[in-house]
Structures are given as structure tokens and as C-alpha cells.
């Protein structure tokens, strides 16, 4: 069953074709690395798959839901880590994660293990997010994705702003997620690091897919 299926998908920012005809099929359990220069459309591709953007033309389905008409249900079943971490500064780490867990209709019991997983449980859990460093904020944002246990992970430069131990943590998360049967689509500028992780590498340029290599791992 294909998790993501896009046929000639076009998405616009204003009138600019950020995605100018994307054909892509991603199966269950794949870990797809999306590479490409700035402005190529990596972030847009991830946001399109998350159901956050209007499909200008072409068609597509994500997790079996139609991209044109069932975007709310797509949004409910994906985990997107974008550039902004979507956290409430005045609330503590735990309060933030509790809120996002309940909003995503996920049992709050999943919050503590997720916090431990991302190393923000012990000292930080009752610290207001405002006081955290950028790296710590990203860990909390990642924890929010872990808590949802989504079937499709969409990570936009997950390694950005993380220290080395944090980057290893991200790699481990991706491996575990794939092992658990989830599908991962991640964009990254760190070419070498994420290579071994990915089962497949696609390059995006000028809003279209210019390369699609499936590693024989």
C-alpha cells in the first residue's frame, strides 16, 4: 500500500510554482531523504504531504486520503517537524507536550516516555519553554512528534540546530520509526550523515524531482 502517491502535483506560493509537477510514490516503511538546493521546493513538498497546502493541479493521496478533499484527515495522521517548533513559551515542557498530546487525541501516558527518549525529561520537564535553548526546543518539538506516533513522519531538516548527541538521537528516532513500520520523509542539508539512514534518496530542483535513487541496502 503506497503511503504517498503524487501525480503531476503542482503547489503554488502566490503565483510561483513552488512544486511544478511532482510524480512520487513512497511505500510503507521507506525512509526517503529529500535533497536539493534552497528554493528547490523541499519544504513545500513536505508541507504538501502534511495536508497544509492546496493542490493547484494534479492529484495525490497520502495515507489513502485524497489530497484535494481530505486534507483534515491527512493532517490528523502525520507528524510534521517544521522550522518553527510550535511551542507555547509560557508553558513548561510537560504542559506543552500534554497539550499537543490531548489535541492530537493521544493518551498522555505517551508523554513521559517521549520526553525521556529526547532527553528532556529529568531537569527540563517543568521549565518554561521560553528558557530553553534552540536545540532543546527542537528536542521538545521532536518529542511532540514522537508522542503522536504518526504513520508518516515529515521532518524538515531535523538535524538543524542540534548538537552531535542530538543528531544521533534523531538518527535513532528515524531508524526506530521505520522499524516500527512508519514511513519517513526527511529533508536535510547534511548529505553524508543521513545517507546510511535512507533507503532511498530523491533530489528536488526547481520544483520537480530530478533524481530518485533506491539504495540496495
Amino acid at each position, binding site marked *: 500500500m503506497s503511503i504517498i502517491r503524487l501525480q503531476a502535483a503542482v503547489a503554488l506560493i502566490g503565483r510561483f510554482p513552488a512544486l511544478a509537477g511532482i510524480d512520487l510514490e513512497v511505500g510503507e516503511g521507506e525512509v526517503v531523504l529529500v535533497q536539493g538546493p534552497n528554493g528547490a521546493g523541499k519544504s513545500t513538498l513536505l508541507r504538501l504531504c502534511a495536508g497544509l497546502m492546496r493542490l493547484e493541479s494534479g492529484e495525490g493521496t497520502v495515507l489513502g486520503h485524497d489530497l484535494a478533499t481530505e486534507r483534515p484527515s491527512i*493532517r*490528523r495522521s502525520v507528524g510534521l517537524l*517544521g522550522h518553527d517548533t510550535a511551542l*507555547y513559551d509560557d508553558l513548561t515542557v510537560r504542559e506543552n507536550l500534554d497539550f499537543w498530546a490531548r489535541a492530537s487525541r493521544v493518551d498522555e501516558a505517551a508523554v513521559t516516555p517521549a520526553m525521556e527518549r529526547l532527553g528532556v525529561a529529568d531537569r527540563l520537564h517543568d521549565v518554561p519553554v521560553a528558557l530553553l535553548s534552540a536545540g532543546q526546543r527542537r528536542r521538545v518539538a521532536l518529542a511532540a512528534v514522537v508522542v503522536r506516533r504518526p504513520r508518516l513522519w515529515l521532518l524538515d531538516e531535523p538535524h538543524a540546530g542540534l548538537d552531535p548527541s542530538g543528531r544521533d538521537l534523531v538518527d535513532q528516532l528515524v531508524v526506530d520509526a521505520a522499524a516500527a513500520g512508519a514511513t519517513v520523509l526527511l529533508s536535510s542539508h547534511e548529505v553524508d550523515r543521513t545517507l546510511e539512514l535512507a533507503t532511498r534518496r530523491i533530489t528536488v530542483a526547481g520544483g520537480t524531482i530530478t533524481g530518485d535513487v533506491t539504495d540496495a541496502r
Partner: protein
Amino acid sequence: MLADIRLVAAKDLRIEWRSRVTLSQVVPFALLVLVLFGFALDANRPVLDAATSGLYWVTVLFVGVMSVQRATAIETTDGARRALLLAGVEPAAVFLGKAVAVALQLLFVEVVLVGGVIVLFDASIESLPLLTATCLVASVGIAAAGTLLGALVAGVRARETVLPILLLPVLAPVLIGATRAFDDALGTVAVDGWAWLGLLAGFGAINTVLGALAYGVLLEET
């Protein structure tokens, strides 16, 4: 849906409680405005008595604009609005949740202001039920219109100045209606306060429905 409304309202109120803006800034500001009205009109007792409910509700309107700006600021930081969409919370629930939080904060300030009006302008309450009903219904109207317009200008450069321009004319019926209802409740003018309350309820209902419908469209635009 109801759980989501409670969830969002609780979140907003907890953030508000954590930063104490209402308590430490909005309430003192409201009382200060009353005091200033007092200075301006006190020498002329009859005018002050007649104008009490009008001054009260002008002050509440200003407080309303401030609370709405606070509530909107909470969501604009760091892409929270998009995350709410992603979490799959019903947009109408987000709207109602935030409106409830704003309404409760407004009610709190209104209670304090009633005390202020009694002490500073020595008003006397003739009909407590009408007074409380007016506060409740007017707060719903202000919160509903405010939350929608707040979300509308969220993320825009000049939102601090645009919001009052948008919100205050829209709230004109609330100012007229609530003032008249208070005139009856405080016994300053022989007028049928309960009829005015009906008008306020109409205003509140229209804006609540409109807000619940339009909020989703706004969130989609981010």
C-alpha cells in the same frame, strides 16, 4: 468537540495565569481609566451619575481590545496556529475555546470595575440579575467578535493598530446595548434593560456563529 474547547480555553487561561498580564496590567489600567473619568466629570455630579454606565462600558471595550490582542499574540508565536491545524483540532473548537478564555478574563475585569463604579461613582445596583446577565452576554459578544478579528490580523505587521479600528466600530451595538441595560440595572434611566439584553444576545449569537465558521478559513490561510 467540547473537550477541545475546554482544552484550548484551559491552555489560554493557564498561559494568562502564568504571565499574570490580566491581573498585573489590564485590571489596573481599567481602574485607572475609571479614575480619569472621575477626574474629568466628578465636579459635575449629575453628569457623572448619568454617564456612569456609558463610562463603564467604554472602559470594558478598551479592556476587550487589550485582552484580544493578548490572546492573539499567544498563537502567533512560533507557528502554533499551523500546529493546531496539524493536530486535527476542529477550528471551530479553537475559536470557541479562545473566545471562552477571553470572555472569562473580561468578566473578571468587569466584576472589578463594578466595584470600582460603586466606590468611585457611588452607583447603586437596583437589579443585580440584569447587571450580571448584561455582563455575561456582552462579554460573549465582545469575545466572539474580538477573537475572530484578532485571528484575522494575526501575523500582520501593524496588527496592534489595525485591531482597534476593526473591532471598535463592530462593537458599537454592544456599547449602546450594554450601556442602556446598565442604565436600567443601575436605575439611572427608565428604560427596559431586558429588551436591550435581547439585542446583545442577538449580537453575541451572530458573532459566535460567524466566528466558528470563519475561523477555519483563516487558519487555512497560514
